[in-house]
């Protein structure tokens, strides 16, 4: 075998190996030297996700699904995937599985949990493993639509059973009644329309009055505004300040007066207490006044003595010389 044939054979072998290896790696989505990290997420159900399906973040492909396996015990499905090393995950990140199109190709997307809060996420028990959930695929939606169609069929059948001749007559009668009611309502509406016209006119008048009042208020406010804009306002404000100072002084005086009043009241309380004690003793018949009050004879004598004193004083006023002689020298 000559050298050319050997070279051709070697070229064919090397070419095939390169095509197989590089093609496989490229189609598999290998990063060719770019550093990547392995991540995991757990799901209750993974739909049609398969190894090789894309991992997306904000719609951009950042990795590929590596493995899909049922976890030990069969409680969850574990999804292993590889993403770019420097990928920054959103806060409270979860993995959502969803159909990428209607033709069976699925994708896994890393999103914040708040984007799909209603999805039932499987909760991982290991740190670093993301919670995951799957959106319904077209088959589930079709199944739901099928159930709705069945329910509608049942409803239609029931309607067919319920809609007998008598029901039809009742419906016809009801339609006639509705027509009569409609006519009455029409007449009522016509009548109410007239009333409404009158009310509207009065409302219009009221609105005019309110408008006039508003104009006057506006004028008043303008005048107030003008007054506020004049220089007299400053002096008025100064006078107000003086009045306020006087009021403060007056308030101080009143506070002093209040103190004096409180002292006077205290003294009055003391006097009243003593008077009360005296009166109590008098009521008990102690002392001269008590004895006077107790003995009616003494009181009568005192009254007669007072009468006589009054007579004596009257006589002294009328005839002073009878009782007093005044000589200077």
């Amino acid at each position, binding site marked *: *075998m000559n050298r050319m044939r*050997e070279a051709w054979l070697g070229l*064919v072998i090397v070419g*095939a190996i390169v095509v*197989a290896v590089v093609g496989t790696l490229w*189609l598999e989505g290998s990063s060719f030297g770019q550093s990547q990290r392995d991540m995991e997420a757990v799901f209750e159900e993974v739909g049609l996700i*398969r190894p090789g399906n894309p991992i997306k973040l904000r719609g951009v492909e950042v990795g590929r699904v590596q493995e899909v396996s049922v976890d030990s015990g069969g409680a969850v499905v574990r999804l292993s995937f590889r993403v770019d090393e420097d990928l920054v995950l959103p806060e409270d990140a979860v993995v959502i599985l969803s159909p990428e199109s209607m033709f069976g190709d699925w994708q896994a997307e890393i999103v914040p949990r708040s984007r799909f809060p209603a999805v039932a996420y499987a909760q991982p028990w290991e740190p670093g493993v993301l919670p995951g959930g799957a959106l319904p695929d077209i088959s589930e939606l079709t199944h739901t639509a099928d159930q709705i169609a069945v329910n509608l069929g049942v409803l239609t059948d029931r309607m067919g059973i319920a809609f007998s001749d008598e029901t039809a007559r009742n419906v016809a009668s009801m339609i006639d009644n509705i027509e009569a009611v409609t006519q009455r309502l029409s007449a009522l509406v016509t009548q109410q329309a007239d009333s409404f016209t009158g009310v509207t006119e009065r409302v219009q008048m009221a609105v005019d009055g309110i408008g006039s009042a508003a104009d006057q208020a506006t004028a008043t406010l303008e005048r107030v505004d003008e007054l506020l804009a004049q220089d007299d306002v400053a002096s008025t404000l100064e006078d107000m300040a003086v009045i306020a100072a006087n009021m403060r002084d007056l308030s101080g005086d009143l506070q002093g007066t209040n103190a004096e009043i409180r002292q006077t009241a205290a003294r009055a309380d003391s006097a009243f207490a003593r008077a009360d004690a005296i009166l109590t003793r008098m009521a008990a018949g102690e002392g001269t006044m008590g004895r006077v009050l107790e003995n009616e004879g003494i009181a009568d004598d005192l009254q007669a003595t007072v009468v006589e004193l009054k007579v004596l004083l009257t006589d002294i006023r009328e005839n002073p010389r009878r009782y007093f002689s005044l000589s200077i020298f």
Partner: protein
Amino acid sequence: MTERLLAPFTAIGRAALSLASGIGRWGVFAGDTVRSLRHVDVWGRLLLEQMSRIGADSVPIALFISTFTGVVLALQASYTFTGAIPMYFVGVLVGKTMMLELGPVLTGLALSGRVGANIAAELGTMRVTEQVDALETMAYPPLAYLVAPRVLAGIIMFPIVTVLAVGIGVVSGWLTSLQLLDMSTAEFLRGLTLFFRPFDVVFTVIKATSFGLIVTSIGCYFGFHTRGGAAGVGQSTTRAVVASSMVILVLDAFWAVVLL
């Protein structure tokens, strides 16, 4: 009367016995070939020559076939989809079909015609011209000298040629999508990578390896057991091509059932 009634059943039975006998003889022949592998000094120095003849020299025809297969696949896919299916599925169809089915099968059928017929004719001629008998007379192991290097070369080179054919078929499908279907490279690549699994390549290699074994061993078997003169050589060549083509299709279905 009875013979006429039994004639169809007799024919079926004879064909079945012939088939079973042929499979048995091929099994014995394959066993002898495996045993001849101990003569490495005999077949070792012939292996590269056979690899070049069976594999490297078959690359042009394999690439020619796969190129047009890729073109036709892309065009027929777009014609079939008719707007109901996204065009990026052209990439899916071209990639999957070339890797899993048409690449290995068409390459195997093409090489069964080229390589299987060549081997059967070459060994058949050697048999009818008593060159094989001469080897046996000289105590030179004919299986190690004539069969083992060809079968080993077929096992090694069929996957290599098939991988190249698949690659060229995918590239031709991509170029067809770009030029004739108004698709973008991104669209085609999206479809191509969408459902790709590394096992697809493994599946291709397994099928191509089995096809290489079948085509070369059947070619050697019919050539080695040629009887008569030139007519016998022609008959052996025809039988080798037909049998290897049929077995390729049977194996194709077998691997699909077993591995997919």
